[in-house]
């Protein structure tokens, strides 16, 4: 099975910390939102505290950890929000 290439959108403190508005990840086929979270924490252990408080959005909707990712999904990391 081909690996899954996902470009994750970043916002606010994560976008500034990464100095980029996206990060490209390679995940195993059939990977879930939870797998993506774990990979991000391994890549950026220094931001673990904030990463663990983020939601993941898939195709512009909040997604649970067990949701499977598929090629072409629009994926974003949503740090704790502060609008208003």
């Amino acid at each position, binding site marked *: 099975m081909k690996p899954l290439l996902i470009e994750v*959108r970043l*916002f*606010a*403190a994560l*976008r*500034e910390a990464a100095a980029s508005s996206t990060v490209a990840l390679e995940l195993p086929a059939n990977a879930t939102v939870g797998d993506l979270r774990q990979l991000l924490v391994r890549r950026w252990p220094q931001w673990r505290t*904030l990463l*663990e*408080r*983020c*939601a*993941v*959005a898939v195709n*512009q*909707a*909040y*997604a*649970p950890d067990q949701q499977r990712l598929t090629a072409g999904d629009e994926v*974003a990391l*949503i*740090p*704790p*929000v*502060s*609008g*208003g």
Partner: protein
Amino acid sequence: MISLTRQAIDYQALTEAVRDPQHGAVVLFLGTVRDRTGEQATARLEYEAYAAMAEREMRRVVEAAQQRWPQTRIALIHRLGTLEVGEVSVAVAVSAPHRAEAFAACRYVIDTLKATVPIWKKEIGPDGTGEWVHPADISMSDPFRPESAV
């Protein structure tokens, strides 16, 4: 009327958009830029959004309010970009036949927006340095948290 904007919010137009001859109550909430957070002086705020999702979530919040208070008319607008102290960052206008539903729906919309809509603010101090606000009391990691958080 539900939108994000980079222009100053015309809250009078927003209020007029919900007025209705059958409605005897109109509530307008404005969120404005405060000059400090705790001890920290604020010179200005910078707002950023995941715009496409933020507009979808704003529509969801308004639809949920209208399911709960079916007779209301609701308009919601949030500003993005750099805002000076005193400027309006968000406006919610609600009309209803009577004031109780108008107040309740308005409060629900602003409280839910603050907990669920992907918009962020950065506080810039008088020395020009800034910090993103990612409130410690909001954990986004349960994606089904949105309705229960309010």
